[in-house]
């Protein structure tokens, strides 16, 4: 067979760096191929070796994460992590970022982010049952922020609602460091049977390879690499184009894929995500230690003039690769025909361990898969760890401070703490009919498992301000906050996924943030037996020289064995409110100081993993013994804000007893929970030998401080609910 022309040496050396390859990487390509590559081969190398696909800066550190445990069925490495929830059932889940595309085209960027992570879930054979999203935007007054917020939320809503998966939770925060680089992280969660998990390792020499779903177009070509531009003569044609999501096709693809998997015809499945056909075929071949031969003439194409390079690197959405059992093509096509889905055989599995790409009768790429994968660059980038400063405690504040209720009102009007109703009401949180706790109803979202009495709890968390001040403590904090949120909703935490969003890893200080955060995450996961089973790394998030705040988002999953253990955070008339945990008065990185305009970089609230375990396990027990009827963890904003949030749920007031004063109300010490009970005596007996204090009793229509100051719940409600809609008016 003819071979496509090899690049000339000068072209090769010019194009390689344009595609993001470094000099040493360029040399390795020559060694592996033993000759100059074709254009298509160069594209394949640069995609597989991009930061996005190879994790070359973070891989060494990711391997130090705690990833094992009794519940883990598949840890990191598959399309999604899979954990055991009993009864032969499992949960597959994963978080993914779509930061850069969402900045360029917020609607489509966010929509395709949702579509991509949903494909990761159903590729494993799981039915998607929920999604969450963690969003970070710039300064609210930055000229682009409103537009980006509107577009991103509409995109998530547009894709998820149409696909038919409930979007049940997430977070939305604002900070100027995201002005030129927003973060759009989506977590998807699916349900499957443990004996029906599908993996991506291809097998069976001669088995047909099936291309399923949408046609390939010139969408997001080479999106996986940071390649800027101009591979070609015609800049207009090659300008990276935006990927457009088609949730309708996404849903059909999901239904048809699950049907095909049930049919028993399938050997392996892989979705086409970043680097499209390239990464999916290389991954299937590499994991199965086989070769793959692709005939691009059989790939459905949307444009008539697509080159092999473009087809291999297109990131068109809603596509999958499937390895079938030999001789079952007809049967498979029939399954797909029922869904009006187009499917084509694009050749087969070989025993060569090579990736061979054929187009128009010529060989456009012929690469040894093991060498391609095993020689992927791995960098131990230099890093400097930030020395945390001394903590900032309440005592350090000079008097006079504003009255607590004034601060409370100001905090409720702060977009970081105000109601996100404007966002989550655009998301269908009810579809599938199984949602038990909807956004705003509790610390975690809760979704029932049909035909069982159990449910799972889901949450996403990160406090970038803490991570910035002490990456290790901040990494730990994100893990323990998600752990607490699951517990407060009635769950036993099982495992987590993460999305590590950082700036340029070639800057040793940023690399230090990455290393520190991973260390912190790892310590917390180990101590809490709360393993990492999947995740994603997004680097180079900065605008010019301005890095984003380090943002390692944690997505947690917990199990509620019995629906009667589900707890919301709304306080009811007559209940007593107890604070569990110790308050020392840590203020650094707090919303309180931010509100007062006090700039500092002191050490964030420390995490005491023993205290976390002691208090967390106690709350799990208190819920199971029905000593508490509502529960809320104390997070950013501190105790008074958390109390007020509990009051807003059902619009009931509270009279507080003497406990805290001034800034103490807003300290952000960790390992604390607010417990609401109908039976104070039972609760306090159960809490003997724990550090707790009685805060007040739910009654009336106002929040009343022991000094007599008060504010009506109605007033708070209005501030809380109107802040975001007023901002967007």
């Amino acid at each position, binding site marked *: 067979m003819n071979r496509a022309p090899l690049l000339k040496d000068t072209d090769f050396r010019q194009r390689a760096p344009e595609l993001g390859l470094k000099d040493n990487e360029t040399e390795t390509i020559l060694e592996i191929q033993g000759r100059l590559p074709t254009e298509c081969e160069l594209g394949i190398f640069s995609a597989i070796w991009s930061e996005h696909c190879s994790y070359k800066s973070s891989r060494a550190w990711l391997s130090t994460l705690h990833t094992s445990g009794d519940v883990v069925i598949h840890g990191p490495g598959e399309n999604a992590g899979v954990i055991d929830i009993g009864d032969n059932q499992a949960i597959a889940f994963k978080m993914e970022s779509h930061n850069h595309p969402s900045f360029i085209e917020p609607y489509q960027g966010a929509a395709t982010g949702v579509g991509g992570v949903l494909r990761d879930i159903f590729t494993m054979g799981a039915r998607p049952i929920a999604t969450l999203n963690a969003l970070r935007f710039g300064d609210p007054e930055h000229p682009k922020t409103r537009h980006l917020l509107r577009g991103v939320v509409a995109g998530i*809503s547009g894709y998820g609602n*149409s696909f038919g998966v409930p979007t049940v939770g997430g977070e939305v925060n604002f900070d100027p460091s995201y002005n030129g680089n927003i973060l759009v992280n989506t977590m998807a969660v699916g349900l499957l049977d443990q004996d029906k998990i599908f993996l991506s390792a291809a097998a069976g020499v001669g088995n047909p390879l099936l291309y399923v779903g949408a046609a390939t177009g010139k969408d997001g070509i080479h999106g996986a690499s940071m390649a800027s531009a101009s591979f070609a003569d015609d800049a207009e044609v090659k300008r990276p184009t935006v990927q457009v999501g088609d949730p309708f096709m996404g849903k*059909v693809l999901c239904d048809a894929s699950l049907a095909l998997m049930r049919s028993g015809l399938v050997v392996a499945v892989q979705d086409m995500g970043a680097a499209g056909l390239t990464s999916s075929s290389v991954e299937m071949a590499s994991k199965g230690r086989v070769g793959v031969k692709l005939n691009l003439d059989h790939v459905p194409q949307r444009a008539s003039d697509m080159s092999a390079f473009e087809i291999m690197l297109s990131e068109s959405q809603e596509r999958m690769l499937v390895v079938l059992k030999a001789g079952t093509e007809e049967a498979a096509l029939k399954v797909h025909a029922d869904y009006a889905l187009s499917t084509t055989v694009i050749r087969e599995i070989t025993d060569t361990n090579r990736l061979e790409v054929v187009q128009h009768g010529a060989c456009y790429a012929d690469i040894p898969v093991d060498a391609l994968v095993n020689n992927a660059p791995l960098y131990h980038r230099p890093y400097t760890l930030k020395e945390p400063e001394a903590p900032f405690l309440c005592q350090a504040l000079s008097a006079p401070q504003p009255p607590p209720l004034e601060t409370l009102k100001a905090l409720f009007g702060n977009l970081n703490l105000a109601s996100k109703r404007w966002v989550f*009401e655009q998301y*269908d949180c009810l*579809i*599938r*009919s*199984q949602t038990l706790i909807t956004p705003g109803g509790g610390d975690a979202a809760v979704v029932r498992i049909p035909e069982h009495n159990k449910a799972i709890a889901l949450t996403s968390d990160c406090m970038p301000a803490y991570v910035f001040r002490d990456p290790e403590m901040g990494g730990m904090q994100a893990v323990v906050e998600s752990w607490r949120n699951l517990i407060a909703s009635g769950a036993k935490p099982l495992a987590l996924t993460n999305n590590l969003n950082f700036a340029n890893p070639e800057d040793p200080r940023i690399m230090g943030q990455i290393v520190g955060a991973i260390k912190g995450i790892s310590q917390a996961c180990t101590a809490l037996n709360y393993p990492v089973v999947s995740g994603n790394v997004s680097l180079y998030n900065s605008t010019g020289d301005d890095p984003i705040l380090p943002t390692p988002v944690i997505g947690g999953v917990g199990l509620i064995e019995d629906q009667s253990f589900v707890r919301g955070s709304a306080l009811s008339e007559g209940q007593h409110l107890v604070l569990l945990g110790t308050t020392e008065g840590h203020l650094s990185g707090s919303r309180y100081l931010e509100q007062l305009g006090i700039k500092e970089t002191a050490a964030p609230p420390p995490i005491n993993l023993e205290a976390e375990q002691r208090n967390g396990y106690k709350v799990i027990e208190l819920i199971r013994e029905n000593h508490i009827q509502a529960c809320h963890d104390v997070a950013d904003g501190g105790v008074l804000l958390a109390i007020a949030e509990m009051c807003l749920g059902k619009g009931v007031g509270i009279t507080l007893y003497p406990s805290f004063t001034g800034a103490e109300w807003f300290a952000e010490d960790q390992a604390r929970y607010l417990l609401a009970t109908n039976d104070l005596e039972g609760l306090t007996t159960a809490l003997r030998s724990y550090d707790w204090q009685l805060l007040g009793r739910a009654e009336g229509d106002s929040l009343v401080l022991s000094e007599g100051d008060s504010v009506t719940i109605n007033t708070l409600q209005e501030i809380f609910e109107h802040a975001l809609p007023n901002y967007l008016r």
Partner: protein
Amino acid sequence: MQAAILSFPGSNREQDAEYALAHVGFSCQIVPSHSAADFSGVDVIVLPGGFSYGDYLRSGAIAAKLPIMHDVRRAAKAGRYVLGICNGFQILTESRLLPGALRMNTGQLFVCRSVKLNVARNDSAFSHLYQPNANLDIPVAHHNGNYFADPDTLEQLEAEERVIFRYGDNPNGSMHDIAGIRNSADNVLGMMPHPENAALAHHQSQDGLKLFASLAARIGS
């Protein structure tokens, strides 16, 4: 009692409907929309929520042109019950089984929340178990739920007492706060809110259950 739940490509609340229907005693079959259907043994045809054909062009427009909609029309003429929920309501208006049209919400955003729903008529096969003027908590989840009809049609709907449900807190700009209407024979109902998501013990409200129970009682008797 037999219910047929139509499944158009892009429908996504078939199962939600099935849970609620099964709860009041229907045995349900999910009927794919791509071939003709025989509804002779069926008591009620349900057009469920979702985004048939992606809601592309206009919500419900493409589904309304499918041949199976002729079978639905014939079944309705023959007196079988037809219930269109959300996208189902949009399909019913696009296929002229019910008058008017559903436009984009005035707020221009998708809206998912519980709304106050008033039972404007409890003399319908779909609502007779509700108290007169009962106020219900039932969720909506739609982007195009803003009911529109020309003045004559509206007048006729009111005169013939065909508005069955009205919003207490109109979430989408619907004219006359219309949330659900019936045909003059009272065997076809279209509504935007989702009674099937407020029907089961674990739902935040069970106010939608009586709609399905009303139908079951009427069919069973």
